Each structure stands twice: as structure tokens, then as C-alpha cells.
């Protein structure tokens, strides 16, 4: 699980061009949206594509997305439980 969290942090930094962030700057329970990393709706689309491409998870329900993208911790657990690749 720790390896997956680190991988997710690296992917988020790279995919979303968070130039000023390093893996150590993102805590496992930091909020991804709102007051945490400050991601927005375009970032949400990028994360949905990342889930599909890298882990074979298709998110179609917007409410499910809200619950999944709470933090790296929650996202990593969701991926572990649902990944197809």
C-alpha cells in the first residue's frame, strides 16, 4: 500500500504539473480538492483518465468520484480494492 501511495503522489505531481510539490509535501490524508492541494474540475478529469489508464478502473458515477478523490489514502484503498490491472 505504501508503494502505491508513493506511486500515486508521483503521478499526481506529474500529470497535474504540480511543479512546486514533491512526494514528501503531500501527506496521505491531505485533501486533494478544496483547501488541500487545491485541485479543480479539470484535474478531476485528469485523475479519472489516470485511474482508467493505469489501473483499469472506470469511474462513471460523479458521486463515486467525490468519495474516491478525498485523499491519497482513500484513493489508494479504492485502487487496491477495484484495480483490474
Amino acid at each position: 500500500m505504501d508503494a502505491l501511495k508513493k506511486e500515486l503522489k508521483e503521478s499526481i505531481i506529474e500529470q497535474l504539473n504540480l511543479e512546486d510539490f514533491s512526494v514528501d509535501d503531500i501527506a496521505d490524508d491531505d485533501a486533494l480538492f478544496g483547501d488541500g492541494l487545491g485541485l479543480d474540475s479539470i484535474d478531476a478529469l485528469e485523475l479519472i483518465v489516470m485511474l482508467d489508464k493505469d489501473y483499469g478502473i472506470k469511474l462513471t458515477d460523479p458521486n463515486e468520484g467525490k468519495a474516491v478523490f478525498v485523499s491519497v489514502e482513500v484513493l489508494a484503498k479504492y485502487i487496491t480494492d477495484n484495480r483490474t490491472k
Partner: protein
Amino acid sequence: MKPCYINSAVSISAQDTLNDSNFLENTISFEGKLAEAIHPNYKKFLSPIASRRMATAVKMGVAAAKKALELAKLEMPDAIITGTGIGCIEDSEKFLNAILDNDEEFLTPTSFIQSTHNTVGAQIALTLKCKGYNVTYVQGAASFESAVIDAQLMLHENEANTILVGGTDELGKFLINDIIFAEEAEEHPIQTPFGEGAHFFSLSSYKQTNSFCALKGLKIFNKARTDTIETKIKAFLKENYLVPEDIDAVILGKNGDAFDVLYQTLQDSIFRDTPQLHYKHLCGEFFTASAFGFWIATNIIKQQQIPDVLTLNSIAKSSYKNVLLYNQLKGQQHSFTLVTSC
């Protein structure tokens, strides 16, 4: 046509041109095929949140535009007009490669949104919260000049009093290699490196305390031959009540290819006794490179001096009032731009 007063001129290029006090001192020469821009610290111009999705051309454009407004002491222009030859090629390449690499699946929106040619003008407007006229011109090597003509007409027709006008182009990472490959197959290829840059200018319909020169005339035409170019330039000068002898410096867009013969024709005839300058060896060739030439023209009048690195002959003048810029690419998209003191 009424004169357009120029109140600021800003350049981000392959030389250290963003520094106001440095008019082409300690220039860099290029050995390779590319002349990449010297990038400023963009954090001075943009918040990390705003800049994280911006590609090179957008960052350069927004930074140059903001500095041009700052120097002109202008908070909000009436219009923003931009020229670009190849737009945001970096994001276009990213998006198109993602289509190929992922077999048309898993496409993300960011690079597609940012890949349009008007992204630079749009991002400047968003940054300033400017809801005025905003147009981007894409006309090959006459893209910047097309933007300036639009600004000139708007000021002439009193549709705007202050306009931010500029040109941006970025090198990108992939297409440029094909362009270099194709160019090298030519019998007389372009000899200067390929470059990139962003140049912005604040224009106004009225003279301000910080106005330092004026755009007197600008003409674009698509074709010319060595036996017609002299007639065309004389006609342009006549329209502006000048003769070739009135020109204190002529800036030529020479890039070393076969079409330099058009410039040479003028160097050997009507401008034989005029200070002759070139600039593409400093900024590289790109569709809006002539905006770098325009920046030089404004600076010559402002500073009343010509850096040695620009000169093609040893003729000098005691003062510089009328500076003519002539640019073309591959014998097409010719432009004459006349800048004068005010």
C-alpha cells in the same frame, strides 16, 4: 492613418532582452540549430496555480504582456491583439502524441484546451480580467504584423485608445525536428537557428509622457520579386511622405536562405548609403521573429544607438528618426514596418 504611439516594448527571446537596461549587450551566438528563449522567473509574473498548466508560449506571452503594461503604466488595455504563426505547438504535440500512444483512448483535456492558437491572448485576458476586444491572428510570417495592423485600424477609428499587441511562438519538441530536416534538404537552407519568443507592445492613440516612438506605417503583401521590391518599398515610403534617403536605419529579416537576395537587392540599391541591420542571428527564425525586429526598431529610436552586433555595414547616423523594418519568409508574407520618433 493616425500615428500609433508606442509606450512600452518588451521582449523575451533567446537573448537577455527582458532586462530593460540591456539593449543587446553581451549577446549569445548559437552553434546549433535551435535558439531557445531565456526564460525569466515566471513566479514574478504568475502564481504557481495559474502557471502550472501553461506551456512555454503561454508563460512567455503572459509575462511579456504584463511587463509591457507595467512599463506603460497601464492597468487595463481596451484590446488585446496577438499574432502567432504556430500557436501552442507544445500542447498540440502532446495531445496528438497522446492520441497515437494510447490508440485514441485515455485523452485528457488540459493539453487539448491549451493547444489552440488563441490560448496566449485568452490567458492574458483571464489574468488581467480584461473583457475587451481579443483577437489572435495566424498569418505565417505576417502574423505579428496582422495583429499590429488591426491595432492601428482600431486606434485610427477611435474604437480603442490603448491596445496591447504582441507576437508569440514556441519551438516545441517534435515538429521542429521535421522542419529542420526539411530545411536541410533545401539547396540554400536557412542559416540562422530556429527560435522562439514573446514580444508585447503597448500602443495608444494619444501621446503619453512615456511614449517614446510611433508606428507610422505598416504594409503586408504576399509576393515580391527582386525586380519589384524596390518599387514596392518606394511606393510604401511615398504613402508615408518619405523617400529612401529619409530612412535612418533599415532592419532586414535576413536568415541566410536563397530569398535573402530580396534584401540584398535593397542593400545594393536604394539603401546602399543607409545603416543596414539584421537580427535573426540573435533571435532565430520563427513566424513572429519580426516582432523581435520591431522591438529593435523601437529601441534604436529610444536609445539613439545601434548595437554593433546588428550592423551589416559601417554607416552610422548622428540621430535615428525613421527606422524601416522589412521582413519576408521564403519570398512570401512580406511586411514593411515604419517606426518613427515622436
